[in-house]
């Protein structure tokens, strides 16, 4: 099977999954015991106001009769799929949900990006190192550290770290170290990352290719600001990467091609980089991609503790205020991202390991 066909098939298989996820969301939020009128207007709403609200929410027709459930379901599906997310009920009344999400997306993407990267930069080298020095004390320390690090609840780690880094904590100096940043709260640096002073000044080649160059000052500031949260969010993946990287190295060390390379007199450094390293990365790929799944759930808690104004925090606020349109839209986006990332993982697999065929990977 060629690649475009494979991708098309995988996308097609994603449709029932998306439909099912959306239906479940609809069932919970629409058939569940939440009363939207009560959620928006509170207990002492006049009947006329309630009636008008129901009409504007699409629960009741203007002539007074109730909209049948299947029509609501159909409208819901059509709205979601056409990215028409409606307006917020409670957090910011009548604000378009799409704008609320787009405004908060950069913080979450920034957090997710660095949590993946920090975990990779720490987890993989430690794992490879432990595998290359197997059964030494440093290996035991790394493996055990990885196991315990993985078992730590993200929200607890976030609480501890934010407590240590802020006033009175052992690492209180962090906020003023090199560049002044807030540890808990939102950084303005993120907004200036790609705006502000002419971003393309002085880099003619990049300007030619229209690659946006981030401003280095805000970039460093934004990095330092997100680092503690990213460390927490990446913790479980980091632990997994240590563990699986170690196993993978041990397995490739035992393989015959490493023996052959040694016999041919290939330098140890080259063996590690070319032969062991590359093969050890293959089993790590699902871990790295699987991290995305953890990021969504984790970002809710980590953003809450570190007061980062991202979409995870938005979801919590929407949930606490019964703001159904916001919750629904976010869940839809998450399901969509999940399906796309699964697809991306399978396609990436075929590039990294040519031995894997495109035919039968429906799992």
């Amino acid at each position, binding site marked *: 099977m060629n690649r475009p066909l494979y991708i098309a098939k995988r996308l097609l298989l994603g449709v029932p999954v998306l439909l099912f996820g959306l239906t479940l969301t609809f069932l919970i939020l629409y058939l569940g015991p939440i009363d939207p009128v009560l959620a928006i207007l509170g207990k002492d709403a006049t009947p006329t106001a309630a009636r008008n609200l129901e009409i504007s929410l699409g629960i009741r027709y203007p002539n007074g009769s109730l909209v049948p459930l299947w029509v609501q379901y159909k409208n819901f599906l059509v709205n979601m799929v056409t990215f028409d997310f409606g307006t917020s009920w409670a957090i910011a009344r009548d604000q378009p949900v799409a704008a609320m999400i787009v405004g908060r997306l950069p913080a979450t993407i920034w957090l997710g990006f660095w949590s993946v990267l920090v975990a990779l930069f720490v987890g993989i080298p430690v794992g490879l190192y432990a595998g290359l020095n197997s059964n030494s004390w440093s290996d035991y320390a790394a493996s055990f550290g990885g196991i315990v690090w993985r078992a730590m609840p993200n929200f607890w780690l976030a609480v501890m770290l934010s407590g240590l880094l802020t006033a009175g904590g052992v690492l209180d100096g962090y906020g003023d170290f090199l560049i002044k940043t807030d540890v808990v709260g939102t950084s303005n640096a993120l907004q200036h990352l790609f705006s502000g002073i002419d971003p393309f000044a002085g880099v003619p080649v990049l300007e030619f290719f229209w690659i946006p160059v981030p401003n280095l000052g805000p970039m460093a500031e934004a990095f330092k600001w997100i680092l503690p949260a990213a460390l927490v969010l990446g913790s479980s993946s980091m632990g997994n990467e240590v563990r699986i990287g170690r196993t993978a190295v041990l397995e490739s060390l035992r393989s015959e091609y490493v023996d052959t390379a040694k016999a041919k007199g290939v330098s140890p450094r080259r063996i590690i980089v070319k032969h062991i390293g590359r093969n050890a990365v293959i089993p790590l790929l699902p871990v790295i991609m699987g991290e995305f799944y953890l990021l969504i759930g984790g970002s809710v808690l980590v953003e809450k503790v570190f007061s980062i104004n991202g979409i995870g925090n938005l979801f919590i606020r929407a949930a606490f205020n019964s703001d159904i349109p916001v919750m629904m839209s976010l869940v839809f986006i998450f399901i969509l991202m999940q*399906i796309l990332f699964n697809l991306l993982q399978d396609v990436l697999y075929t590039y990294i390991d040519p031995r894997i065929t495109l035919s039968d990977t429906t799992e």
Partner: protein
Amino acid sequence: MAANTTHADDTRDTTRRSTDGLWTRIRTNPQPALRWGVVAAVLVVLELGALTGGILTLVDALVMGVTGLIDVIVGLVSPALAGRVVDVQLALSTFIEGVRSTAQSLPTLLSRDVIPNQGYNDPSTVRSFLGLSYNAWTGPFLGLSPAAAWAIRMALTLAYSLFTFYWLYRGWLTFRTHYRRAGWTPRDDMVNRLRNHSWGKFGIVVLVLFLTMSLFGTTLAPSTVQQNITASYGNEVQYVSDDTGAVETIPVGEANFNSKSKGNPAQNVGVMTYDDYGRFHPFGTLPNGRDLFTYMMGGAETTLMVTGIAIGMAGFIAALLALVSSYYGGTVDLSVLTLADGIVSIPQLLLLIMVSVVFQDHWLKSVFNGGLLLALVFGLTTWPVLWRSLRGPALQVAEEEWVDAAKSFGQQPTVTMRKHMLPYVLGYLLIYASMTVGGIVIAMASLSFLGNGLGITPPTPAWGRAISQGQPYVSSASWHIALIPGLIIVVLVTGANALGDGIRDAIDPESEGGSEEEAAATGGGA
């Protein structure tokens, strides 16, 4: 195998040919059974009250789980009828609660009554022991200090429960060497491998300790949940007043109010310290003055109930669907796959938050302080993860020749699945279930951490809520509030993962850690 069964061989040879039951086999060679039974009987008699109480707690959880499931199914058809089911459920639960309080009056050696730890220190009271006279406390065991009395009771209880667990294992070993009809089964090898797996044994010890904490928490803690937390104004403690020097009585709630841990050294009751009322706090107090150790024991009970019901339910659904989908394959398999993918596509934590918010004022939330709702949601969202892990082994066994043979002579599909496929799948279920437990514990704690009606309803103790209460005090004198509950969660989750590793190495020594189950252990990123 021959080496370690020498002296039992002749007895077994005679029994193996006969069709006698276990009882006859024990009568032929009563000595080993007797030796085991005497010690077991002593163990039971020592703790009759507590054991009955513990078993009743489990029965209570089981009744709650089963009736809860019926609730949900009936609730889909008619909410009014479901309300009736809740009444039955609550009546049953109250009945069990009544039996449990009667059980508590049965003689128990390691109980709060036999080794009390609460009391006051009147300087005028002097006792002598072996010729040494000392200033004794009034109330605690032997007039010792509350700390010492508590430590003795806790150490004895832990030792008792670890030994009892070991003795149960010894019982199985006795059965295996002396009374089992088969000389050897594959399961023997698995147990032997697990016995030599120190990482797996660490997991077992952690789980036994956790079970002790949740079932015998009342004995372990310096106070009880009822006295210290839920009904603190209905109970009183005696103390020696600093002002008057006389013994005075104060409601526990008021004593708690003056024992708060609020961060500044002047207002803090830290780890292993006494408060002003002669009460010992091994883990210090919470910001509202309640005893953190007692709170943790109460939280362990809630955690055990929710996790137990959830993992039981998820495991049952996953095993059933794995058998059915691998036996029939084709469309059945594909539809289960779509269902599982659809459930997994919604991030578990978001789904949990969503359901908790929607059901906030629902009657389900009132059952079991919100624990039942949590358990149901965990059960219904965790099975796809387990099913995915079981599907591989189930497909493998479905292709075996013996399954084919069973099909070809017309055996019922259910019988084939139960007899020829289930035993193989069950081992894998154990691995993945124990790895998933950690995720459920973490996710449950994170919901209680978020609060606002999510998670367990206050004032019932929940581990996550303790962390949330301690959040402002992480780097102050009251650091213990957030630190200790987190560490306990870390140890429990590590232990559950270790047990999973141990079982995997025991069942399938060739395998190395995969990636899917690793992700399951993190509770959807919580």
